[in-house]
């Protein structure tokens, strides 16, 4: 018979049982799709608008997005052997994989999303695009959120973009140097051992993994800081629309109908029949 107090405490086994990262990601994604995005969507559409509630929901989704990067960081700092699985996540679908940069979205994605909102506001009068239809029933502050963005915002975006232009190639360069260093060590070992029988490159691989972990952590830090800085530079309506857009985009990758169509498509991507070498 369970102890009367057991209902107040979690059993140690439940608490300590690790779950596959794949399941963690599924839960994280479902929370985003089924809970946080509808919440934000609802508060963006409710009229009259309630900035406090909107701000609260904005921060929920922001922290949820950031928490994913923290989980990635914790996974690789606990065990660097997790890294390859997070750099090449098999739980991401075929549509997502080509767009992954060091395991997740490219940091430029965030600034480009922001630019697309600002550009859309510029072109708004000339177009009758889908977005207008989508936001038609929204409060005026939401619909007009991107009109006449502040000078401070434009300066901030440019500053973030400049930072990214420096940091993204540096990350790729570090990966290149690390891989090249590993190949060099393996080749030296090959020469020293005169063949593969006695070779031991496990130390070299371990060292490379540790270096790649630091690159991965920096890539996640960069993604986190870009999202935080962008949201920090936006007002509550802009911030909510930005995060709603980002969440919708993530959810869009898992649109079941689109994925089915994608998987079933048999037409070759291009007409080319082989490499012209």
């Amino acid at each position: 018979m369970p102890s009367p107090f057991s209902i107040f405490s979690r059993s140690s086994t439940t608490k300590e049982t690790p779950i596959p990262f794949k399941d963690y990601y599924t839960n994280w994604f479902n929370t985003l799709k089924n809970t946080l995005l509808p919440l934000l969507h609802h508060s963006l559409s409710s009229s009259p608008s309630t900035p406090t509630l909107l701000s609260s929901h904005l921060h929920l989704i922001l922290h949820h997005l950031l928490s994913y990067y923290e989980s990635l960081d914790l996974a690789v700092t606990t065990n660097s052997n997790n890294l390859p699985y997070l750099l090449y996540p098999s739980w991401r679908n075929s549509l997502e994989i080509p767009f992954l940069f060091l395991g997740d979205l490219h940091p430029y994605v965030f600034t480009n999303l922001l630019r697309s909102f600002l550009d859309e506001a510029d072109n708004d009068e000339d177009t009758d695009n889908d977005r207008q239809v989508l936001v038609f029933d929204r409060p005026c502050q939401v619909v007009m959120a991107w009109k006449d963005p502040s000078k401070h915002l434009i300066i901030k975006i440019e500053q973030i973009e400049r930072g990214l232009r420096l940091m993204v190639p540096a990350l790729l360069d570090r990966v290149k140097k690390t891989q090249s260093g590993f190949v060099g060590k393996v080749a030296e070992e090959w020469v020293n051992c005169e063949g593969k029988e006695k070779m031991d490159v496990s130390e070299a691989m371990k060292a490379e993994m540790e270096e790649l972990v630091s690159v991965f952590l920096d890539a996640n830090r960069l993604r986190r800081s870009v999202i935080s800085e962008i949201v920090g530079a936006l007002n509550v309506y802009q911030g909510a629309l930005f995060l709603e857009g980002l969440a919708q985009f993530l959810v869009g990758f898992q649109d079941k109908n689109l994925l089915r169509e994608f998987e079933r498509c048999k037409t070759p991507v291009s007409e080319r029949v082989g490499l012209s070498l």
Partner: protein
Amino acid sequence: MAELRKMPSGVNSEGDRMIDFKELKVMMMSARWDSMDAFKEIRNCQVQEEESQAMQSKGIEREGDSDETDHLAVVVQCMTVHKRGRSTKEVSGGMFGLWRQEQKTRAARLEKQLKARWKIEELIEEQLNRFPAHYNHAVLPARLKDVPQLLMPKWFLPHELATLAWLGDWRPSAILDLVHVLVQSSSFSLSSSSSNSNAVERLLAQLIHEIRIEEAIIDEEMAEIQATCIILLPFAPIRNHRRGANALSCIRAEFKKIERVIVKAQQLRLKALELAVKKVLRQSDAAEFLVAFAGIQEVIHQLAAKQKLPKGPVILPAQDFEGSERKSDATRHQQSSFRVFGIRKSGVMCTRP
């Protein structure tokens, strides 16, 4: 006649029935050779020597210089010296027959060596040809769902991908890095000559530099595709893609760009390999490099298999994380903030299985 028979044995100090150049000189100094027969023998030897030299130069022309060629050159030189040595009047017909026999044996050995070298050349070519065939095979079916397979090929284990891969396979500059280390090692024949070795290292450094630039250009192209996907994919929040185009054709347009980048990467990989084998290395070194390349891939694959996590990466869920998905929508609203902040504050613990 008996004296004649004694002549070669008289100068053959080693007693191996073969006379070297010094011995020949001794014999020549002590002998007269004025008969036509002897002259014919010399002519014969000269013709055969010319043939041998022609064979030798053919070998060099085909395959370049190497240790083996040096060895062959020594063999040929010995043969010609011996031939000259036999071309004296005093040399008997029987002895000449023996020399001819020897010469035939040596020629056969030489031919065998040459054939072996041609075989190596064929094997190198075959090995090189396997790469484009492999890449073509990988690219040819390229339907939409095949493109991610090219970036994350199933035959690579996760640790192999992380440690080596660039757009689905070996980084081209890393292939040349591998050549660089092998060239620096004493196992390659080209390093026997320091000036030659320096020239090769300079060439290699230049090629690595050029290949890295091309890699960076391809990286830029891929970054552009990855960065603009939030504008161009059909589920982009702001739809800037082609008006009227359906969702799948938008995806196809992006995947076509990605496929083009992958093909460029594969071509660059092949270019690096061909440069290494055909431009930088001599034939025997190229063969050694290809053996090392295949061997190293196997070693890394085996190590990656040992590092494999049977259940993939795992994570310790934060409090109330797992159960929350089962709660009703009404309670989710209240719980979500707790859960999200719970994850953030308590941190998600990760551990090995």
